[in-house]
């Protein structure tokens, strides 16, 4: 029974979340038409993340996974919809209350070269959040920084304190970025492609580090990736996004064993497998992902779908629970 209560404890809940970015028009176009056009980056997304879970948003570039991640930590303001962190609606928070929230949720970016200030020593950069949030300063701060360096495997920690980012390797830089993300003891970390710029031989160490933090610090992750092989290794549950919408969501076992949505099927069939001369049976999709400004009517995947029916061009399918804990947005199911 206790176990069940734990499983149900949602830490993040996102409901009907939308983010539309207005498209900049030329002066002439502004005179000629009143109608605004929008990039519908995130278009009605609903999901929740349980405590200590690794929930992954996966999809091709432009599907809205990064925008969703940035909305969850409120680096962006949603156009509409709700984001709950624990029981609090954070979708409209501003100012001091938003700043307080930042202690609880952190983000790790893809490019460790760009996310550390080149003029700050790694020690200062990692300890900076402690000062901003008035947690510690001076010697006390340094002690915490050294502890965190030790946790992320930047050892011996004293040696790294006064180094600048350019003196670190890519892997070490991403460790420093991870150190900064955990130093305030947050509850949720949004990790946006944290390993895609890191050499293959070092990826596993970064992934294992993240898995360890979950165990030791009780962290919850929203993991964002285009690499489904990495997603399969790390996640508990996965949501596949296409043009701003979740089209399939469920446990990774179910999703990889028998993908239901035609897009998921095509995506999985295209992933290279490290085996020689395999006869792959790739599902051929027509064309490429359309622009998020002109989203096709009905099901947004229908122009490329190999199994489309007449209703697909007219009615948009909703994300429905087709079996326990597995959700699909497709008229065929």
């Amino acid at each position, binding site marked *: 029974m206790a176990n069940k209560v734990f499983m149900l404890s949602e830490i993040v809940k996102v409901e009907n979340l939308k983010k539309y970015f207005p498209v900049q028009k030329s002066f002439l176009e502004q005179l000629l038409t009143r109608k605004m056009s929008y990039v519908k980056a995130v278009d009605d997304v609903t999901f929740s993340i349980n405590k200590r879970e690794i929930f992954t948003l996966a999809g*091709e*570039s432009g599907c809205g996974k990064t925008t969703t991640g940035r909305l969850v930590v409120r680096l962006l303001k949603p156009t509409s919809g709700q984001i709950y962190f624990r029981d609090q609606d954070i979708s409209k928070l501003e100012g001091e209350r938003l700043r307080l929230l930042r202690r609880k949720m952190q983000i790790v970016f893809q490019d460790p070269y760009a996310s550390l200030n080149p003029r700050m020593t790694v020690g200062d950069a990692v300890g900076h959040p402690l000062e901003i949030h008035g947690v510690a300063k001076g010697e006390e701060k340094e002690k915490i920084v050294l502890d965190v360096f030790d946790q992320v495997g930047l050892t011996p920690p004293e040696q790294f304190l006064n180094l600048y980012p350019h003196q670190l*390797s890519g*892997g*070490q830089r991403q460790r420093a970025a991870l150190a900064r993300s955990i130093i305030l003891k947050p509850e949720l970390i949004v990790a946006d492609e944290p390993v895609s710029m890191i*050499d*293959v*031989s*070092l*990826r*596993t*160490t970064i*992934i*294992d580090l993240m898995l360890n933090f979950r165990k030791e610090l009780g962290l919850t992750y929203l993991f964002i990736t*285009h690499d*489904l*092989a*990495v997603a*399969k*290794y790390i996640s508990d549950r996965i949501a596949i996004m296409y043009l701003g919408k979740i089209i399939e969501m469920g446990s990774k*076992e179910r999703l*990889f064993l028998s993908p239901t949505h035609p897009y998921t099927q*095509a*995506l*999985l069939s*295209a*992933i*290279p*497998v*490290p*085996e*020689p*001369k*395999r006869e*792959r049976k*790739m599902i*051929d*999709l027509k064309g*490429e*992902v359309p622009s998020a400004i002109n989203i096709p009517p009905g099901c947004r995947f229908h122009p490329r779908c190999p199994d489309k029916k007449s209703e697909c061009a007219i009615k948009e399918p909703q994300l429905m629970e087709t079996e326990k804990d597995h959700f699909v947005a497709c008229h065929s199911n």
Partner: protein
Amino acid sequence: MPLLEIDSLAVDYRTSRGAVHALDDVSFSLHKGETLGLAGESGSGKSTLGLSIMRLVPYPGVIVKGQIKIDETDILKLPESEMRSIRAVKVAYIFQDPMTSLNPVKKIGAHFVELIRTHEPRTSEKEAVERAKNVLKNLGLLSERINDYPHQFSGGMRQRIMIGLAIALNPDLVIADEPTTALDVIVQAKTLDLLEDLRKIYGMALIFISHDLSIILERCDKIIVMYAGHMVEYATSPDLHKAPKHPYTQGLLQSIPNIELSDQKLSAIPGSPPNMVNPPKGCPFWPRCPYAMEICPVKVPPLIVSGQNHLVRCFLYGE
């Protein structure tokens, strides 16, 4: 007679902080119609090797030693003027980023016409346009699109155009340097299928450079694994997959997730790739190697034959 024969090639980058040995003692040969994968992490020298074959190593890189023979001619001895009859005609190169390799103010057709007429001056403009249209058709693009500019194409289409430019003069060898790294998986798989189909039709050999060992295992006949400027292993794709010999190759294979396996246990290679300005003495892999012995930091191991068509640079093998 091999199409390409490289013998003890060495390339240095002469930087202000001293010479960086980007390639050291690289030897292999490639026959007509074969596909060879060059696998390795950033800084392993795989792109430098590809560019050496075109004699396009960027400044301050210098080929300091070795031979590169194409059809029995050592191209390192040719004057620069004669390299024009090699580049694009015998050996073509596909770069990673199609947006920076296509001229944004020129129509796609103009790229083809310029290429064809530079190397075959007797071809008329009209004939060159016809040939360009034909290539576009082979790429699965409409031939009218010859009048479009690069920005009017998607990333996947632009990379297909790069492939088209590479095969336009029907070269014997195409070097594809991370041709699909910037593309999404579905487009990547389609692009690789296209490259494979065209390669078969035109009977070209292919050198495929990638950091992604999965793609190389899937698509190439033979594989060279590079580490810190050295060839550490050379084998057929099935041999490398079944029985990798070099500890680095073994580590690399154990760190690649495979979506067809459930409950896969990945392990990492400890440490980080070496700083090439100041690499470790002896075998460059020894600081990360689980089997390092006393001799490893002392001497660079030679590339030795270990099994049929299988070469490895490691003291664990041999006598």
